[in-house]
């Protein structure tokens, strides 16, 4: 582990086009691009499935099946398919983005439809009773109530994206995976360990960031901060099963 500390403290590794900050930035930009694209696809789809209840069977199994797709295989496959037709840097970035989006859509889809589906029927009833129409119910009641699970899906997807973007260094892109692949090719354990630690730390920080956004966006009424119910005795209270739906999907 001295080698790793040595690598991280060497100032030469913090500058230049293959320095740590550059790689972190490359990794982050790619990750957020992928998350955005995946959300653009998955959120509307998930809202539709959750609100209308149609296509549920497909959505559930899609999430499970997609988790089985081997990311390395997908990366190689899409790269071989697209590399002939793209010029310049796009020939590496586009296949990577395609694969990242493919792997990120299922958890987000899962979180969104489970969230919308799981909204308290009483709240839906009340909304209709107040005169809201379908889309208004969706926008004003279902989505806000579904936010915790939606965020859970987003965070799960982000973890998957960051992990896969690391492996994508094997098809030539930049990012923190470079330290792993380049370190591997010369058996530089310090570089590899440093890369691993950086990826882990990055994943944690991004998750914290998303958690912060979640805290800001989700209504306090949902988090139980203002609970007016009488406290239930310890031994009679069942712990909420926090195996969140994206894991059970």
């Amino acid at each position, binding site marked *: 582990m001295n080698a790793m500390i040595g690598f991280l403290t060497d100032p030469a590794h913090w500058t230049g086009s293959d320095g740590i900050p550059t790689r972190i930035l490359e990794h982050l930009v790619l990750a957020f691009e992928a998350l955005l694209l995946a959300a653009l696809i998955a959120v509307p789809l998930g809202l539709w499935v959750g609100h209308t209840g149609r296509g549920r069977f497909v959505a559930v199994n899609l999430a*499970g099946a997609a*988790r*089985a797709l081997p990311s390395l*295989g*997908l990366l190689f496959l899409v790269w071989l398919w697209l590399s002939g037709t793209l010029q310049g840097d796009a020939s590496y970035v586009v296949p990577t983005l395609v694969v990242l989006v493919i792997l990120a859509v299922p958890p987000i889809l899962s979180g969104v439809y489970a969230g919308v589906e799981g909204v308290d029927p009483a709240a839906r009833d009340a909304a209709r009773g107040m005169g809201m129409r379908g889309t208004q119910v969706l926008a004003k009641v279902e989505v806000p109530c579904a936010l915790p699970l939606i965020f859970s899906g987003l965070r799960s997807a982000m973890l998957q994206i960051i992990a896969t973007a690391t492996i994508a260094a094997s098809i030539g892109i930049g990012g923190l995976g470079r330290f792993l*692949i380049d370190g591997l090719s010369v058996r530089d354990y310090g570089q590899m360990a440093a890369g*691993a630690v950086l990826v882990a730390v990055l994943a944690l920080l991004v998750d914290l960031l998303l958690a912060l956004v979640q805290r800001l966006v989700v209504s306090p009424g949902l988090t139980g901060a203002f609970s007016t119910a009488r406290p239930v005795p310890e031994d*009679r209270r*069942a712990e909420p099963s926090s195996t969140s739906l994206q894991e059970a999907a």
Partner: protein
Amino acid sequence: MTWFLDHRAEVFDLAVRHLYLAGVPLLIGLLLALPLGWLARRFRPLYPPLIIGTGLLYTIPSLALFILMPGFIGTQILDPVNVLIAMTIYTIALLVRTVADGLGAVPGDVNQAATAMGYGRVARFFKVELPLAVPVISAGLRVAAVSNVSIVSVAAIIGVAQLGSLFTDGFSRSFLDPIVVGIIACVVLALLLDVVIVAATWLLTPWQRAGRVRT
């Protein structure tokens, strides 16, 4: 497709190795996650550090763990045991929380009733809490199984033979067939493991089926 038909034996051989590298860690990981999850549930102060600690483990990139393993445990560089142990760590990381939450989902009334019937703590764990926690744990196990199958394929980069080898071989020759076959084989393998786990869960939870038998 003809490539697959010509290479059936080789693909099957690689698939079996893949199953070994993904499946054995599932068993061992589950066995090790059970006491850890129980500890997290039993002693409340342990829950956050255990859950956060194991969550951290999961963020370590798989490739790095495979490579650095010989440094930690002194195995030979090309030994598949490196992959086995790394995968077990990932399985535990996924399952500890699931086990803790599964055990926690057992209603307090049931535990109290069991104690009233005379079950000691250990007997209660094995005969009441664990069986009732099976549905939740099995959901987590299914996730772990599928994710293991995907992660193991990355080990092809360090030369460990399994279905991922089809990816590296196909890529180095710009040959799509092995890659496609490998992807399909991985998905089929994951499906297989999923079916086995679902079947085992179904057999282990007869009370969930009881309602339907009534006429």
